[in-house]
C-alpha cells in the first residue's frame, strides 16, 4: 500500500478535529474533536509502524505500543474532561465555553450564570480579600439562611 494514503487521511482527520476544536462552542463537542485529532495521530503511528517494521526491520514496534498508550491516555482524558465539564455545568449552569470567561482580562463580570451580580452593595464584602465567587456564595448562603 502506498504510504501516502494513511498519511493523507491522517492529516485530513487532524485538520477536521482542529476545525472542531476552534469552531465548536459546546465543551463536549470540543472534546469529541480532540478525540478525532488523537485518532488521526494514532493512524499515523500505526501506518508508520507497519512501514518501518518491514522497511527498516524495526522489531521494537514502538508505533503500536505508543498507539496503545495514546488510546489509554485518551480514555483517561475523556473521563477527566467530562468530569470537569460536568462540574462546570453544575456550578455555572452552562457548558458553553464562550461564556466561561471569568479569568479573561478586560471583560466585566459575566452576566450569564448568576442572576445576582457580585456588585451588590448590600453584601458585606471582606476588605478586598474574597473574590467575587465567594462573595456570591456568601450572599446566597445568607439569603437562604
Amino acid at each position, binding site marked *: 500500500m502506498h504510504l501516502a494514503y494513511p498519511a493523507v487521511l491522517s492529516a485530513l482527520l487532524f485538520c*477536521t478535529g482542529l476545525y472542531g476544536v476552534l469552531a465548536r462552542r459546546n465543551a463536549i463537542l470540543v472534546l469529541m474533536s480532540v*478525540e478525532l485529532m488523537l485518532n488521526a495521530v494514532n493512524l499515523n503511528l*500505526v501506518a508508520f509502524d507497519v512501514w518501518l517494521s518491514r522497511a527498516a526491520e524495526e522489531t521494537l514496534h514502538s508505533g503500536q505500543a505508543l498507539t496503545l498508550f495514546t488510546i489509554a491516555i485518551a480514555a483517561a482524558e*475523556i473521563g477527566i474532561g467530562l468530569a470537569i465539564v460536568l462540574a462546570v455545568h453544575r456550578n455555572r449552569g452552562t457548558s458553553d465555553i*464562550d461564556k466561561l470567561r471569568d479569568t479573561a482580562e478586560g471583560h466585566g463580570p459575566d452576566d450569564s450564570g448568576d442572576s445576582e451580580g457580585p456588585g451588590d452593595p448590600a453584601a458585606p464584602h471582606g476588605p478586598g480579600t474574597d473574590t467575587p465567587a465567594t462573595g456570591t456564595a456568601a450572599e446566597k448562603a445568607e439569603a437562604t439562611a
Partner: protein
Amino acid sequence: MTLATAAAHMTAAHTAAAHLAAAPTTGAPEPHGFLSPTGVEIAFLLVGLVTFGAAVVTVTTRQLVHAALWLVVALGGLAVEYLLLTAEFIAWVQVLIYVGAVVVLILFGLMLTRAPIGRSPDADSGNRWAALTVAVAAAAALVWVVADAFRTTWIDLDGPASGSTAVTGASLFQNWVLPFEALSVLLLAALVGAIVLSRRAQPDRSLTPTVSDAPRPAPSGAGPADTAGTGEKADNGPDQADSAERSEGANKANKASKDDKADKGDDR
C-alpha cells in the same frame, strides 16, 4: 442510506482485497504504481472517504447527539483502517475503548449537561470562518508536505501480519513493560481524579454530622430525618462551646451545603 451503500461498497472491496492479497504472494514483486492501485488501497480509500465524511459531519452538525453518533462511524472506520494495515490488535482495542467506552461516556456527558435533543442553533461559535480558514490552510500544508515526502514509499503488507496479537503482546511486554505499568498508575490517578471531580461537595456534608453526633447518643426522632440544612443547624447548637475552629468549620460546611442547594434550585 448513503452510509449503508458505502458500507456495502466497503465490504465488497474488502473481500476483493482479501482475494487479491491472498493470490499473488509468490513470484517476483511487481513494480508499484499510482495508476494501478491494489485492492487494499481501494478498500483503504473507500473506508477513508467514509471516515473523513463522518468526521466532517461530526464537527459540523448542529444536533449534538448526532455528532456523537457520527463519531462512532468515524472511529469504527478507523478501526477498519487498522485492520487493513494488518494491525489487528490495535483495531480491536479501538473498537473496545473508543466505540465502546468513550462514545458512551460522551453520550452520558451530553445527557447530564442537558444537551438539547433537537437542532441547537448555537453549536458553532462566531469565529467559525476563522477556524475554517485555519483548518483548510493547515490541511493544505500538511497534505502537500506529506504527499510530497512519501511519494515513493510503499508499505509492504505481504507476509505475516506485523500487528497481530502475538507480535504486539510480545513487544509490549518485552520492551514496553515500564511505560505500561506507569500507564496503569496513570489510569488509577485518572479514575480517582474523575471521582473526586464529579461528586458534589459531599465531604463537607458527610463530615459535619459525624463530628457533632459522635460525643452524645442520638436524639430520638428529631434531626436527621429532616433536610440536611435544618439538621445541621440543630446539631451545631450545643457544639459551639467545644472549639472555635470546629464551629467555624461547621458554619462553613453549612454555608457550602446551602450554597449547593441554592445552586440546585437555580438549575431547576
